[in-house]
């Protein structure tokens, strides 16, 4: 039993390391080589856990080999457009000037239901309003609408939209994130002052506090229960 426990720990940390080295992508955004490596690594590594008669090295060695191959293929495809194209890592234009490119759809085995579903997810129902739709290597679709169909922007209407920036978390579940305070050029004294203004006694009472560079603050206090 102890061996199963230790083997499981070793395999878990090995797969975690492999995924970390492979990069911070979500499972649905994996490229073909990453998907193959991820599926095979998880399957092969499980064998020595299921069968105690199989040495652990039979799981570790293929996992390391797959990981190395994946990292090397990613590096080579960065440099070689030809190999990228060969591995299917190139985007395909599936709608051009409001017309579906059926040849590309067939080539990518992408059916009309999948296409319309992806378009709906992005709030587009009228294919004729699309100038270009690109099927990305990770299976998602990027859409470029005709300029006449694009939503208007504050700049087009000459409206001052202010100068806000991306809000950063300053207090996360009662913990002050000092690095983000530094990023905004503020200190704990400033934070305490802002909390006092909102009748909050301590940062520990805050569930989430964010601020952008214009100091627009969002505060969510912890539930009292």
């Amino acid at each position, binding site marked *: 039993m102890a061996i199963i426990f230790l083997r499981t720990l070793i395999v878990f940390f090995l797969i975690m390391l492999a995924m970390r080295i492979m990069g911070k992508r979500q499972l649905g955004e994996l490229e073909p080589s990453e998907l193959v490596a991820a599926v095979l690594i998880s399957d092969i590594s499980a064998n020595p856990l299921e069968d105690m*008669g199989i040495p652990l090295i039979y799981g570790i060695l293929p996992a*390391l*080999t797959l990981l190395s191959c994946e990292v090397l293929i990613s590096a080579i495809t960065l440099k070689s457009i030809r190999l990228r194209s060969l591995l299917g890592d190139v985007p395909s234009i599936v709608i051009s000037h409001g017309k579906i490119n059926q040849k590309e759809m067939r080539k990518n085995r992408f059916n009309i239901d999948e296409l319309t579903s992806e378009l709906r997810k992005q709030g587009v129902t009228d294919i004729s309003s699309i100038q270009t739709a690109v099927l990305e290597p990770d299976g998602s679709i990027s859409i470029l609408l005709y300029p006449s169909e694009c939503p208007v922007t504050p700049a087009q209407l000459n409206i001052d939209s202010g100068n806000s920036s991306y809000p950063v978390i300053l207090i996360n579940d009662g913990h002050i994130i000092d690095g983000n305070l530094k990023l905004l050029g503020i200190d704990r004294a400033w934070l305490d002052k802002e909390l006092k203004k909102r009748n909050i006694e301590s940062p520990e009472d805050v569930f989430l506090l964010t601020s952008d560079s214009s100091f627009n603050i969002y505060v969510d206090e912890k539930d009292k229960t």
Partner: protein
Amino acid sequence: MKKELFTAFLLIGIFAACLANVSYIGKLTDEINKLICQSQELAAEGNWQASAEAAEEAVRVWHEHDAYIHIVLKHADIDSATDAIYDLLAEVYSHSAGNVDGTALRAHYHFECIYNMERISFGSLF
């Protein structure tokens, strides 16, 4: 680039370790097979004492590598080979001249199989 270089060296290292393992297993099974053959020949000559010594030496060599073989070989294969070699020893101890040849052949076959599974060949690849 460091990550790519590391993985390239890791890949080369793994392959080199695999080749070293094939060579090591080859030498080990070869040594044991020679002792099995020696034991078989001595038994055929009726020299049971020397035959037992050769078979015991084969058992000793096999067990000497216990830690290594349990890391690189499937435990079921190790168990079959160990059984075969002990069967030979039992036949030699009981002076069963008619059975030694058969058990020696079986033991020889087991160790041959272990090496064949490890070495790089068309058959073992596919």
